[in-house]
């Protein structure tokens, strides 16, 4: 951990001093000195606030895209475009690959300070600042929960999700934290027509959560941030993981692992599975 922190600081200082980038996006300690929060460093003198520890889980690719993203901001004239260095975990690397495939920004504007764990990511980090272990315990826990849900009948599963979704307060934290939710206007905010009603009734919550999951199908980088930020603890990662499995099974596609592959739902094969069609 300390070695990774040192590497990040060294690379950040070098990039900022060489003026190779305008800002380094990484992690710093929060107000309590325990939690970590995103850091945006644009002065070489400030690089020592950058840290890395096991609490650094944020998917920082979020800050690249969207209306206020560093690389896609509408509020910045094109002659003031910024170059960004990004501290990227494996899931962040997958997100960057998928976002590049969605033509969100130019690879040349981004310097990737990668922290890798051996899982496939379709991107060679510009600088590898660290190597971490895969959290297999977490993966097994998710797998076990999905298996438990699969063992239920449809009615039981519906009841289980009904209880989860009925907790939703429609704060949209899951959307705000997700690097793939970069739409200028979210479908949940549209009101003419209002496809997804705002009041947190069960069906409305189900509508929101299922559409959110569907919009991530074939794109999700499996960082688990939606799950972590949910203030009422809806296990959103279960749905995302499940849809990742379905996409892989149906189309042999894993988002973010191949920079050339078309996103699963933005492509087709003439002989795709059609067993359910009359």
């Amino acid at each position, binding site marked *: 951990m300390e070695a990774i922190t040192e590497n990040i600081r060294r690379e950040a200082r070098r990039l900022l001093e060489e003026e190779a980038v305008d800002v380094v996006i990484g992690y710093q300690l929060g107000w309590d000195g325990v939690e970590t929060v995103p850091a945006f460093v644009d002065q070489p003198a400030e690089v020592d606030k950058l840290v890395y520890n096991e609490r650094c889980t944020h998917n920082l690719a979020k800050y690249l895209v969207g209306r206020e993203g560093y690389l896609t901001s509408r509020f910045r004239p094109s002659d003031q475009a910024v170059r960004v260095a990004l501290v990227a975990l494996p899931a962040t690397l997958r997100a960057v690959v998928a976002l590049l495939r969605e033509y969100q920004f130019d690879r040349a504007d981004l310097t990737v300070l990668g922290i890798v764990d051996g899982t496939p990511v379709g991107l060679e980090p510009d600088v590898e600042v660290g190597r971490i272990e895969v959290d297999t315990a977490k993966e097994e826990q998710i797998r076990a929960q999905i298996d438990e849900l699969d063992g239920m009948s449809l009615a039981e599963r519906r009841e289980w999700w009904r209880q989860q979704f009925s907790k939703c307060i429609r704060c949209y934290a899951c959307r705000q934290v997700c690097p793939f939710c970069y739409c200028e206007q979210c479908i949940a905010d549209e009101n003419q027509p209002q496809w997804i009603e705002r009041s947190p009734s069960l069906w409305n919550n189900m*509508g929101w959560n299922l559409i959110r999951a569907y919009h991530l199908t074939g794109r999700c980088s499996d960082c688990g941030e939606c799950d972590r930020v949910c203030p009422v603890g809806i296990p959103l990662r279960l749905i995302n993981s499940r849809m990742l499995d379905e996409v892989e099974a149906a189309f042999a596609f894993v988002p973010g692992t191949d920079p050339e592959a078309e996103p699963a739902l933005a492509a087709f094969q*003439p002989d795709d599975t059609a067993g359910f069609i009359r």
Partner: protein
Amino acid sequence: MLSSNQVETLSASGGVDLSTWEPRIFAFLCNWCSYVGADLAGTSRLVYPATVRIIRLPCTGRVDPVFILRSFQRGADGVLVSGCHPGDCHYSKGNFYARRRMLMFRKLLEFAGIDPRRLQMSWVSASEGSKWAQVVTDVTNEVKALGPLRA
């Protein structure tokens, strides 16, 4: 007055009287094939269950899964998406995209505990009036067996 037996049946089915209940099926049809096929079924005087409410779209590629969820919210017990046979799409590939979307959305519904058979898809060409009548009959029977989708 309802007999206590009737009251029990009603409450077990969420306030729906199953003896007279008919499913409501929202059908999203493409303008070029299935809508014309359904029209042909009508002009040919074919008889099929009056359970479908047809919504005409330019192409099945226009079917956003949010339409389907919204249909379920607003009283549909089943949704039928129907378009041109593969290779016949007026826009060459809209139905190929729709096929992948419906496949994935069915998986999502299933994981959320909604029977995927409530979302059906069919290829019905402009000359297949009788196939349309058959599809509606089959889908109606299948959704009827599943019972009402209560909120």
